[in-house]
């Protein structure tokens, strides 16, 4: 119930999730994602004009449950824009990074990913971490206003 409320709060605060089903296809669209993800995109992409200006400084977001663990981010604002986001907590932090046997990479096929046009029943992807990320970032940015 609490998680649902958190999700509902996110809808109000950042524009919301549109959750809809259509002819066997299921999409979770994060409307705010485009704006929020722009700071992470490499230069050259056209960013839409945004009229939100933040106060310069470093702001720490809330700790959000990503189910696999906590996500917490710290946003840095320079010149009124998000210039960096660092992870203070990340779900995989407890996985020990032991060296594994370094075998020669077998001949595994590689390809550049391309968008596919197909009717699918269901989509596999990691949604949990990014949702928690957006929520944590949002609380960081709310302090910067």
């Amino acid at each position, binding site marked *: 119930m609490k*998680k649902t409320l958190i*999700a509902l709060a996110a809808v109000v605060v950042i524009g919301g999730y549109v*959750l809809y*089903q259509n002819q*066997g296809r*299921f*999409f*979770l*669209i*994060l409307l705010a994602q485009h704006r929020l*993800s722009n*700071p*992470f*995109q*490499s230069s050259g992409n056209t960013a839409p004009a945004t009229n939100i200006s933040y106060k310069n400084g470093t702001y720490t977001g809330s700790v959000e*449950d*990503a*189910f*696999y*663990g906590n996500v917490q981010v710290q946003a840095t604002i320079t010149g009124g824009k998000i210039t*960096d*986001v660092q*992870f*203070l907590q*990340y*779900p*995989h932090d*407890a*996985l*020990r*990074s*032991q060296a*594994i046997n370094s*075998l020669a*990479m*077998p*001949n*595994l*096929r*590689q*390809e*550049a*990913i391309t*968008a*596919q*046009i*197909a009717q*699918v*029943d*269901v*989509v*596999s*992807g*990691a*949604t*949990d*971490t*990014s*949702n*928690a990320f957006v929520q944590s970032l949002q609380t960081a940015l709310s302090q910067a206003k």
Partner: protein
Amino acid sequence: MKQTRLMMGMPITVEIVNCKVKLFHFQEIFNYFQYIDDTFSTYKENSEISKINRGLLTKSQYSRDMQTILDLAERTRQDTQGYFDIHRGDKIDPSGIVKGWAIYQAALSLKQKGFTDYYVDAGGDIQVSGLNSHHQPWIVGIRNPFNREEIVKVVSLKGKGIATSGTYIRGAHIYNPQDKTDNLAEVISFTVIGPNVYEADRFATAAFAMGKKGIEFIEKLSGFEGYMIDKKSIATMTSKFSEYVVKSVEESEKKDLKSIQ
């Protein structure tokens, strides 16, 4: 019939292809996930796992599901060269293994009720069974980690589990807090197809944590295939992954064109 709930911070979707299916069948599945959250969430003070971490329960008092999960977590630690470990100092957090296991248990409960054609999807980790409403194997898209509205691969699955581990945030700002030189963003998305979603999920989690070596790890596991996307939008796949791939319309047309020429 298909139903979705937002639970545990993620959408959980169940589709059952059967004319006799009723809403309560779905409600039972969502109730089960609620029980899982109530038992295994480290964020709930009164969950069993929280009580264990506060030293309030002895091993003999653990529930059967808790004992099962702890045994499976230990087995996974051994199976993944220590990359998967639920120990956080003197506390334990098995949530990395609970999700896939719970999806699989939910799917098995549908089987026990006599359903044959269904899938259970919790936050993009999926168990499929039987056929879809078009009497075909279930068609599963792999989401583009750089654009959530797109899919970059389409696979056809019969009685398998598929799980994706990763982060959908583009850029080089994602580091392992324990080791700042370890750039987790090298690998953005790691999808594993396995005999069931529990197996796929635990190995996807571990493979993602291994960075680019993760794909080698999956290649060596029999019965598992992997599709790894790195920050340069390059996908690396295991040698038999292509057996699951549904060719896109354009690719099929190109192939036809070639054969004509």
